[in-house]
């Protein structure tokens, strides 16, 4: 996969794991509790103790618990209005009776055995009285022990639930006090399975260069809430000659008594996404601990010797500025870009950090590798807005993360690399490689189970977002995205929220668009016929679109008009299916003599077009030499190549347009030229 898979796979994995638990309800996820052992927790703490100081801090912090539906950062305002804790303003998300407020996580790895050891100080808080049991979701753990903050053992029962998912039930000696923080200490060992597979990113890696963990839940998740982000501090223990890198704000390293280093990463934002990597890194970019104020968010790169991390930093700053100007300011204090092993397979963007495979850090500017780096990095940085700032509320809403991140990346390459190849490649990928059998609605959780998940979620999704740009105009669409971020930043959102935001910003009802592109499958397929009449003042076009797909689709068709004086003009016509028919007829008058048309120039629509009049590929109503020229320009372009064993492979080619594939074999070549030559003189039928 080009994107080489960012957060989607992780999200999908989480969803796949979490959904049965959430849907079945808490009881189904909980291992059977054995006889309760009442232990008195050391609460309240001794006055003036370090524990009390930390508790005070956490209590202050907890006041900002919940999500500000109005985009406000005012913690008191949030507290007054927040209806729940787990996901404060999202009514469909399960409302947890208790919350994880904070986690202090200390991890160390044994790279020779792919083992991980962790110690987690978990701060929980009850929203209602009577909570005597904490249910946590984990991955596969070993040697689990739970104590209170003073080291007193608590009753704990870890059990495998299904697949690689486990459940940890902690029995409390007495019910949690409402609105009071309680700390538990969970320690465990784990044997990691770093085998990647399918389209998923490799979950972890241990070789001589990189020791990294991305998709193992070394933190603890709320067992009763499908989504339950928390603030955290991560401490990664490394040998003296290695450096750790992780999302969040890097706070430096402390030397431990045994000579090893403990690297601290503060995550002041609530998130469940995480990961870390250990290598002989060199750091480039900003140091948030230097005391030097950054004009914008800090950008830091961790790459091994021999790689130029500065190029990655510079590019990141450009992408931040680009997206910030169009979709709202960068939401966090900053972020780190972290090089991981090549076998990782792509990029992954937790909140405040991005992991990317090794090779992209070695890209030379303006090379092919550079294009890959730009596309990947822009996609992952865009996840800071889409996926982390605005979070998908459910598995139906992954497009808010992946599709919007890919759209942002395509927009960046279109504007900065002056090429729509990325967007067009995505477009062709969906249109040509997803069969009706594998297709799923973009806005449905079923898409996660399609073998064409990437082609639908990333590729189609990005183009669908771009089609909205065509519908509304770029300026209006970007205003909508900015407003969407304002309304749903640090919150969970659904694609179903879009129509209201669009209506608020533009006054337009675009609900049909979301029904067509998010709730249903398919793309635009149709046959175009034109009648062109000329007068002394210009030309009049009648265009008939016959919908060939299962359902007629509505869309805004960009037309590039070519005139006899050599000039061009771009116009849009709205193709709106007439009720009960598969035909749409539109008319347009030009004040110059029209000599040719190119529908959907730049390929903005998910479509396959045919021309009804044989050979009239430039749609001027007559097959003539100008059509020969048009098809000759596209000859040699193919999207399907045969290898020496005869196996066909698909290659998206930005120069491809099926309008010119007259013989319809996924290649534009001499056969198509001959077909046009045979048709010379054919004129369009009147309608």
């Amino acid at each position, binding site marked *: 996969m080009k994107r080489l898979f960012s957060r989607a796979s992780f999200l999908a994995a989480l969803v796949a794991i979490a959904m049965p638990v959430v849907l079945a309800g808490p009881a189904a996820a909980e291992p059977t509790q054995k006889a309760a052992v009442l232990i008195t927790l050391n609460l309240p703490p001794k006055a003036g103790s370090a524990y009390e100081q930390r508790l005070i801090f956490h209590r202050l912090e907890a006041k900002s618990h919940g999500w500000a539906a109005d985009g406000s950062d005012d913690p008191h305002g949030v507290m007054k209005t927040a209806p729940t804790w787990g996901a404060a303003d999202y009514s469909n998300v399960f409302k947890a009776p208790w919350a994880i407020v904070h986690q202090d996580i200390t991890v160390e790895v044994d790279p020779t055995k792919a083992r991980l050891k962790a110690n987690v100080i978990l701060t929980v808080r009850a929203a209602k009285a009577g909570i005597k049991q904490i249910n946590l979701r984990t991955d596969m753990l070993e040697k689990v022990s739970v104590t209170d903050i003073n080291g007193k053992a608590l009753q704990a029962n870890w059990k495998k639930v299904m697949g690689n998912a486990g459940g940890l039930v902690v029995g409390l000696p007495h019910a949690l006090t409402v609105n009071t923080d309680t700390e538990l200490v969970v320690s465990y060992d784990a044997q990691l399975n770093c085998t990647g597979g399918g389209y998923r990113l490799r979950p972890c890696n241990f070789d001589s260069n990189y020791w990294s963990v991305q998709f193992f839940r070394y933190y603890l998740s709320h067992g009763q809430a499908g989504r339950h982000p928390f603030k955290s501090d991560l401490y990664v223990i490394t040998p003296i000659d290695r450096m750790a890198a992780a999302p969040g704000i890097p706070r430096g390293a402390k030397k431990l008594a045994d000579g090893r280093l403990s690297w601290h990463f503060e995550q002041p934002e609530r998130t469940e996404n995480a990961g870390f990597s250990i290598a002989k890194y060199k750091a480039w970019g900003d140091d948030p601990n230097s005391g030097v104020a950054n004009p914008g968010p800090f950008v830091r790169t961790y790459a091994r010797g021999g790689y130029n991390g500065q190029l990655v930093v510079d590019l990141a700053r450009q992408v931040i500025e680009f997206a910030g100007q169009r979709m709202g300011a960068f939401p966090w204090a900053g972020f780190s870009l972290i090089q991981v092993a090549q076998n990782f397979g792509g990029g992954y963007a937790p909140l405040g950090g991005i992991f990317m495979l090794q090779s992209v850090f070695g890209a030379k500017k303006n090379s092919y590798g550079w294009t890959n780096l730009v596309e990947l990095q822009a996609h992952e940085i865009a996840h800071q807005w889409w996926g982390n700032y605005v979070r998908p509320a459910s598995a139906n809403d992954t497009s808010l993360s992946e599709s919007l991140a890919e759209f942002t990346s395509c927009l960046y390459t279109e504007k900065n690399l002056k090429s729509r190849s990325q967007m067009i490649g995505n477009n062709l990928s969906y249109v040509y490689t997803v069969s009706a059998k594998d297709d799923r609605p973009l806005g449905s959780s079923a898409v996660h189970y399609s073998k064409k998940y990437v082609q639908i979620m990333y590729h189609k999704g990005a183009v669908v977002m771009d089609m909205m740009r065509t519908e509304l105009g770029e300026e209006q669409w970007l205003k909508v995205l900015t407003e969407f971020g304002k309304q749903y930043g640090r919150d969970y959102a659904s694609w179903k929220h879009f129509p209201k935001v669009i209506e608020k910003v533009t006054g337009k009802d675009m609900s049909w668009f979301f029904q067509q592109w998010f709730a249903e499958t398919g793309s635009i397929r149709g046959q175009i016929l034109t009648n062109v009449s*000329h007068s002394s003042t210009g030309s009049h076009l009648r265009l008939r679109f016959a919908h060939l797909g299962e359902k007629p689709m509505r869309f805004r068709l960009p037309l590039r008009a070519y005139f*006899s004086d*050599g000039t061009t003009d771009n116009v849009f016509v709205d193709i709106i299916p007439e009720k009960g028919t598969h035909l749409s007829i539109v008319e347009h008058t030009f004040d110059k*003599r029209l*000599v040719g048309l190119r529908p959907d120039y730049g390929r903005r629509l998910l479509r396959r077009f045919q021309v009804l009049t044989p050979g009239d590929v430039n749609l001027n109503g007559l097959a*003539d*030499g*100008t*059509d*020969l*020229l048009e*098809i*000759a*320009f596209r*000859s*040699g*372009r*193919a999207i399907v*190549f045969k290898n020496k064993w005869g196996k066909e492979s698909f*290659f998206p*080619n*930005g*120069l491809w347009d099926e309008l010119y594939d007259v013989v319809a074999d996924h290649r534009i*070549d*001499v056969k198509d*030229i*001959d077909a*046009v*030559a045979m048709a*010379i*003189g054919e004129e369009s039928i009147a309608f």
Partner: protein
Amino acid sequence: MRVQRSSGRRRRRSPADLLVALLAASVLLAWGCSDDVLDGPVDSTAQTNLGGDNGKVGDDGKGGATAKTTTKLSFDVQSVPTGPRILLEPTKTGDKTFTVRLLIVDFANLFGVATHLRYDPKALELTDLKTHELLRGPGYDARAIAKDSPKGRVLLGVARYLVSGSAFQALKGATVNKAAWATLTFKVLKPGKHTVTFDKNATIARRSDYQIVDAAWATLTVSHEEVAR
């Protein structure tokens, strides 16, 4: 007795013909067309006997002579001196027949060219239409089309196309100093001045980067008249 000349026969020119031809040529030169001197003869004052040998027109075979007339087939080629241009090169081939060669001259990076060539089908009959090879080159083949459809509108086009190499590569055009694109053979159906001209609304030449070449397109006027001897 009337004997029709075959259109392919070489006609012997009179000294007067040559004199007029020289005068016409000098006029053309003065007009600035020296760069467009064509390969074939442009016999702008060629006269053809429609009536038979020795200019005996209207001989009914009964010895009663009628008025002595002859015909004149002449060509007026409007052309341009420099720059990329499409020329029309007429050549008289018979009493009422002539060929017109379309010539592509001085194009750099030419990818293709298309046009509609117009003539009055009531005055001229297109009896033959041929296209020639051009624009081929390493990695490129070329295709030309030509069709008189409907009569009086000759649809013409020639373009090169990629046949080898990467499907993602940039295109290259051909350099054309002077090449024949098509040859049209006409028969005059009635006297008068008849134009053979490119439809400016349907002419286009493009470079390999799809940009339009600002080319000049010639016009040919064919005069066919009966004159008294």
